[in-house]
């Protein structure tokens, strides 16, 4: 079974769920950490805007992610204006307070996070804020989940689906799991008992030979999702191909600003072109992200690559699979 949410990854470790699973159940972590799958070229684009004198606002998770040109944190140490925000909307305040500066929000995250960026863009358009723009590197989870569901090497028996992504999306975008691939898809919350409920539901569907899409996350996840958030996503964004670090390009898995909002699109405003970026030598984050190996199987794990000096993105983020293994893995069964 695979979970595809960094918050699940950490909760599974913190609660010790893996240590009580029977030997017949194996739970692997998928590409559930948006920080980890953000392409190197995308981070380099943000750094290049700092070099050009812009203010770049980003969620704190992104600050330590390294690429060839350094990281947001290392640029800030050198006096460039990278700012941590806890809400996308704080960027609007920064832009209004600094009318003579270009202010760019680094939009990273899955469908849980993207509506906040959409709300920022809509509000900036409504108030005609001229010096604000967005680098939209938001990613859509269903195309990545489908890629893994279709991967014959993985032989997955079911997916534990990300509860908060599904708060926004609802059930329909993941219906292809039972309908096309015959796999259980169970939407679960993040408390240990909610995760256990999710795993139990996957097992039950298997035993009964009746794969289905089901939520065990109470009323937080509605079948139709959050219509207001979905409406805002549809209004502001359109789908585009996106590069996932370690996986490659997945068609239609990214969110770009629609033409209507192109004056807020930092890629267009600053005429950026994204380089694919080369992964660090020896880093096996790609195989970790797709559940093909567990972090201790990577030769860099715990030697060259640690949370204090991470080589790959899966070690940088607190919700990355390597970071979680580093903190919690004591050699118990994977």
């Amino acid at each position, binding site marked *: 079974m695979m979970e595809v949410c960094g918050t699940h990854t950490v909760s599974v470790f913190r609660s010790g769920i893996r240590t009580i699973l029977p030997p017949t159940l194996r739970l692997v972590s998928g590409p559930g950490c948006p920080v980890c799958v953000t392409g190197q070229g995308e981070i380099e684009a943000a750094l290049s805007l700092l070099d050009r004198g812009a203010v770049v606002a980003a969620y704190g998770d992104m600050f330590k992610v390294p690429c060839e040109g350094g990281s947001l944190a290392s640029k800030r140490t050198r006096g460039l204006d990278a700012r941590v925000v806890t809400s996308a909307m704080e960027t609007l305040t920064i832009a209004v307070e600094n009318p003579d500066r270009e202010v760019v929000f680094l939009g990273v995250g899955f469908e849980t996070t993207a509506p906040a960026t959409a709300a920022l863009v809509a509000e900036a358009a409504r108030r005609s804020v001229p010096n604000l723009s967005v680098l939209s590197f938001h990613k859509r989870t269903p195309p990545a989940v489908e890629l893994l569901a279709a991967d014959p090497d993985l032989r997955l028996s079911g997916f534990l689906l990300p509860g908060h992504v599904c*708060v926004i999306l609802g059930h329909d975008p993941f219906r292809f799991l039972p309908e096309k691939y015959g796999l259980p898809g169970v939407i679960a919350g993040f408390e240990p008992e909610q995760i256990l409920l999710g795993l139990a539901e996957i097992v039950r569907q298997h035993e009964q030979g009746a794969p289905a899409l089901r939520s065990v996350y*109470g009323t937080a996840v509605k079948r139709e999702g959050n219509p207001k958030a979905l409406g805002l996503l549809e209004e502001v964004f359109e789908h585009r191909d996106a590069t996932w670090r370690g996986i490659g390009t997945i068609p239609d898995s990214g969110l770009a600003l629609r033409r209507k909002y192109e004056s807020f699109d930092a890629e267009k405003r600053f005429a950026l072109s994204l380089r694919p970026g080369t992964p660090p030598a020896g880093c096996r984050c790609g195989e970790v992200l797709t559940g093909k190996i567990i972090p201790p199987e990577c030769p860099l794990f715990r030697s060259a690559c640690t949370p204090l000096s991470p080589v790959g993105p899966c070690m940088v983020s607190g919700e990355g699979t390597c970071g979680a293994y580093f903190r919690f893995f004591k050699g118990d069964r994977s």
Partner: protein
Amino acid sequence: MCLAVPHTIETILGENRALAAAGAVRTEIRTDLVENVVPGDTVLVHAGFAIEKLSPEDSEELKGLWDELRALAGDPYAR
């Protein structure tokens, strides 16, 4: 990154802005993504935005699922 925490709405501050509390922590949040929020509502907050209203049946449903699970596991104390 997709962490979201239930908050209770305390005061409506203006269009799409509200003061909300999670335990002792009070934060200004945005309510652009939810309909008709009033003080007393419980909302799930992610990155400064309420992303969904929660209903009181949530805990009941979880409890019901637990009972179902325990019954499946042969727990004699399950309802």
